[in-house]
């Protein structure tokens, strides 16, 4: 992930901080809404939201996070939210790690 972050810093220059801010805020909002969506069983909307997080995370090089998102998205798309709360917990902690790495960079 560090390698990817360096590439992004080179690419974005001053805008890198914008990227960090956008990634943090947008996706935190997604994560905040996911708990409720899972509880109310809106699997389609869960898949939709997590899809967005998955793409962005892949793009900043957070491969583990992106993988977990992929699993949740796949299950949600199939209407299966049985593992969703545990997966969401993993995703949240992986997200915090990613954000920390970004902010340190």
């Amino acid at each position, binding site marked *: 992930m560090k390698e990817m972050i360096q590439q992004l810093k080179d690419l974005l220059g001053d805008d890198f901080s914008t990227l960090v801010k956008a*990634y943090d805020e947008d996706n935190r909002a997604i994560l905040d809404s996911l708990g409720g969506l899972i509880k109310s069983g809106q699997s389609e909307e869960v898949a939709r939201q997590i899809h967005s997080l998955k793409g962005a995370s892949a793009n900043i090089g957070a491969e583990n996070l*992106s993988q977990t998102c992929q699993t949740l998205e796949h299950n949600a798309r199939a209407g299966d939210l049985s593992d969703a709360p545990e997966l969401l917990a993993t995703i949240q902690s992986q997200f915090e790690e990613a954000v920390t790495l970004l902010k340190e960079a």
Partner: protein
Amino acid sequence: MKILIAEDNATDRLILKKLVEQQGHEVVEAKNGKEAIEKYSSELPGIVLLDVIMPEADGFEVAKFIKLNYDALYTPIIFITSLTETEFLVKCIESGGDDFFTKPFNRIVLQAKIDAFIRAKNLYQTVVKQKQEIELYSEHLVQEQRVAKQIFDNVAHKGALEEAYISYSVSALSIFNGDILLAAKRPLGGVNVLLGDFTGHGLPASIGALPVSDIFYSMTTKGFELFEIISKLNERLHSILPTGFFCCAILAEIDFEQNSLTFWNGGLPDAYLIKRKSGELLELPSSHLPLGIVENDKYDINIDMMAFEDGDSIFIYSDGVIEAEDDRGEMFGRDNLVLALLNGVSEGKSFDSVSQAIKSHSKGSSQGDDITFLEVRNHFEDQTYSPDEVEQVQVKSGPSDSSINLFLGPQSLKSYNPMPMLFDMLMEIGNLRSYRTPLFTILTELYSNSLEHGILKLSSSLKRSADGFAEYYRLREARLDALKDGYVKIAISHADLADGGMLTIHFEDSGEGFDYKSVENIKDDSKLSGRGYPLIYKLADSVVFDNNGSTVTIKFRWYSTGKPQ
């Protein structure tokens, strides 16, 4: 190139924007589908990078909108997706997507895709531009051809083609196939026809057709003989056509009164003389080089004369007739042509029979544009010489108080035809143009009497039979060729009168004269063809012979009102 990025996730949008900008392109951003449609319509970007899942209209809807409304702009649409399920990819393609770009973004892959689409787009635009240019050019060409056709039709007008005794078929754009068909009435009665087929097609052929038409019409109207017209045509075409281009042609002169056909074929397929009485077809093959290949002094202009009797007709055609193909590419062919001609002979409907046969042969085939054929039938020509419509002309106009004296020695008699020159001059005087037909008849009859009967001692009785006719012209040529001495003197003078004028025409030849008293006695019997004098008696105001008939003076009175006396 301006590139639209439609992506709802700010992280992805920002990274993509930077990647695209790094490659030197201008970026337009949209955060959702609705904004993407608005930005596309206002900015008209060259390429669209489109996320599939977005709020407010997803990527599929945006793609469909662009393809539906801006298809002609050929905007490549690249879907940004991390979806790998086949059904999603199919949906992307169906909604108008051209390619995919997956997350995580790869700079090299993106660059390759964008560059490839720019090349494709440039190629597409070049093709579109060329297509438009070609369309425009083609439109111009059609327009030019239309105008050219109008000009051509004015010069190569139909002439006498619409006469009842002529049937013809030419395709609407035949000039661009190199065919030309002309017919003109001769001032003395009868008709000249010309069918020409230029090598090549299109412009060169139609340009060559213009002088042909011009020469043919003006020389026929002025009364030049067929061989003189051919000679002039060859000379002109030889000087203007580049080597390798030429004109195959048939020229024919038909004299309905003398029942004769004068015929020349240079390079066209055999024409046919159709003898209705006997049901025979006589082939009239090409026996000369086409026009425009060699210089006049190496050009053989031997014309054939033959009888053209009541019921006879002549059929002339260009290659296109026998080469007309049916839907299997089979040519119509000479045998079918002859068959069709023979089928129509007994009813005198050979032309219709051929038309019908070609039509049914080439049915279903697109070909058939350069088919030209013509039939001229013998008919009775009414020689009443009613003057043409009169123009209001001053009495004293042109060389109205002039006289002309012409002496023609043996060399001139052999190779020079004085009629066009004399006729040209007379046509300038007052209102004589309205009397062109009778005047031309008088002059021509007097001249041929002096030359053929007076000097060459040919007997006009020969001309009464078909065989004798050919013999007459054979002898005429042989004796003219051998002529060592002899002359014809022509004196024409004109005097103005209050309401018109009086023309005096005097002919004198070196021959022995003839029994003119017998002519004077039969002058009222127009049926006899004794030396054409009955006709002259009918047309002239007075005819006076002298010197045993070797001189003759006629007077011709004309009126400014154009009314016959």
